[in-house]
């Protein structure tokens, strides 16, 4: 793991949940949520408080415990210890009653391949105890929401990945749920399809539904969510609004050197010993230099200062951007590869 020079390490604010509006009823309350598999704590004492109507993201690298946390909140995985209340129902004891008022979009589409688009919605409604004629009454609305009106009678096999995901989302709405749980809703989708899903989720949020999603796309969390919890090794390392997470954990301005430019300044193109510390003047100027693979990230508190220093040493060819949740995420969860 690359070091974190020229900047004091930011202490992780484990368990801090940031600002929670207390005037609204709470959709999710979890205390000390823990799940052990084979002696290892996959989820290790998570506390969560999510008011109704909020869009909340569980952010974390692969294997951090996001999906297990979500499954425990939904009553699909029994916790090893801890207390959960969702929509006022104790979980997992009253998981069935809670799920009657919730919609779930799983990580991998499990639409019914034996049915058409329309039949999928009717059949899924039956699992919720929604009568056929009640689903039929909302059919046009659901199909329009999924933009599948033209494909209503098509088989599932013929749908694109984006269409399947949209149908899975519409399927989760057959019972008009108060809470929608989405496990990596846009993973594996192309940019257009992803935008489309985000637009849909925005609509659902405006309707006042509580959205609970897991993701490892920082952009998704940043765009959609009121608050995000960054999870690593089964624990919450930070929890707040995306903007405040950035303010609290990272310098607001970033310059990126990419590809050959980065390799040059890292001294990896030619074996010149003097290049080893070629970016040291930036660190001396109070900037934080962070090599990540074939990219160098340079963080600064003031934009002009950052740009002046980089311009003076490196010259043009760099890329400037404001700090994002991704920077916070990498800072808090480290840079080593996860599988």
């Amino acid at each position, binding site marked *: 793991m690359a070091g974190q020079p020229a900047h004091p390490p930011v202490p992780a604010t484990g368990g801090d949940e940031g600002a929670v509006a207390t005037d609204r009823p709470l959709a999710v309350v979890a205390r000390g949520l823990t799940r*052990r*598999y*084979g002696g290892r704590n996959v989820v290790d004492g998570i506390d969560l408080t999510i008011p109704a109507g909020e869009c909340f993201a569980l952010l974390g690298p692969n294997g951090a415990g996001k999906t297990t946390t979500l499954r425990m909140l*939904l009553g*699909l*995985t*029994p916790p090893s210890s801890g207390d959960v209340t969702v929509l006022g129902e104790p979980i997992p004891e009253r998981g*069935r*009653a809670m*799920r*009657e008022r919730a919609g*779930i979009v*799983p990580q*991998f589409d*499990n*639409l*019914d*391949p*034996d*049915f058409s688009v329309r*039949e999928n919605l009717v*059949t*899924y409604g*039956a*699992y*919720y*105890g929604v009568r056929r004629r009640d689903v039929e009454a909302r059919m046009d609305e659901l199909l329009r929401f999924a933009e599948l009106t033209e494909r209503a009678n098509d088989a599932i096999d013929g749908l694109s990945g984006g269409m399947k995901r949209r149908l899975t989302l519409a399927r989760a709405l057959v019972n008009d749920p108060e809470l929608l749980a989405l496990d990596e809703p846009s993973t594996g989708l192309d940019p257009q399809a992803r935008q489309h899903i985000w637009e849909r989720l925005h609509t659902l949020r405006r309707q006042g539904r509580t959205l609970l999603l897991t993701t490892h796309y920082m952009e998704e969390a940043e765009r959609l969510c009121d608050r995000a919890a960054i999870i690593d090794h089964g624990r919450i390392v930070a929890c707040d609004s995306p903007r405040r997470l950035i303010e609290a954990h990272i310098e607001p301005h970033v310059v990126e050197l990419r590809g050959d430019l980065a390799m040059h300044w890292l001294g990896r193109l030619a074996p010149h010993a003097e290049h080893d510390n070629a970016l040291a003047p930036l660190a001396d100027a109070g900037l934080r230099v962070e090599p990540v693979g074939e990219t160098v990230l340079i963080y600064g508190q003031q934009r002009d200062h950052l740009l002046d220093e980089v311009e003076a040493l490196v010259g043009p060819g760099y890329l400037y951007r404001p700090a994002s949740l991704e920077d916070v995420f990498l800072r808090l969860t480290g840079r080593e590869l996860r599988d």
Partner: protein
Amino acid sequence: MSDRPLSQDLREAPQLSTRFVAVWLRNLRVWRKLMLPSILGNFGEPLLYLLALGYGLGQFVGEVENMSYMMFLASGIVCSAAMTGATFEALYSAYTRLTQQQTWAAMLAAPMNVDDVVLGEIVWAGTKALINSSAIVLVAALLGLVRGPEALLVFPIILLAGLAFAGIAMIVTAISPSYDFFLYYFTLVMTPMLLLSGVFFPLSSLPDVVGIGAQFLPLAHVVMLVRPLMTGGTIDAPLLHLAVILVYIVGTYWISAALARRRLIR
């Protein structure tokens, strides 16, 4: 698998609710789409056995238990068709929905419990057994191999038998790591049961020890109920046979639901 000991899961009774009907309905809707080829496919094979063995072998066998071999065999085939019908549905079809299609996972994300899904699948497989066997009963009636109206009682018995066979198969499905695993069940359970339950020849022609062992096979009890009803005989100890079938239904549902919970709730 779950961290809990198996004995603890087995001690917990399945929770009964009417939610299972949605699972049954789902399977019925799919079946209706391919109803004709499904019926033809499912009763084609037992019908071939009946005609080929009945006519072919029947000429050498002559009379069995005071009836033509064809008549003897028809009532046996009705029972074995129920067994194969329920078994295939609860093994291959249910396993596909559990693994490949993830239909069960989708149901469990809705307000359904594992117990509902397992019960829905078992009742559906029992329904398939009833459909398959009813077709054979009809053909047998047309061929004059059914004696009287008490044969109508065969239908509820076949449904119960279908539930029992489906329950046994569901245990295998719940623990199966792959489709190949089913071969053990066919070789070690299904085939011996088919041959030793009095479907093709009377149990009395077997050595005593085998005949006693056969008393534990549900198919043997189904045959002992169905054969007299179809051929106009009297049933020895009907309540005993029914009790054995009911014990199998309740016991296998209990066990298969516990095993499926163990597999899925983790």
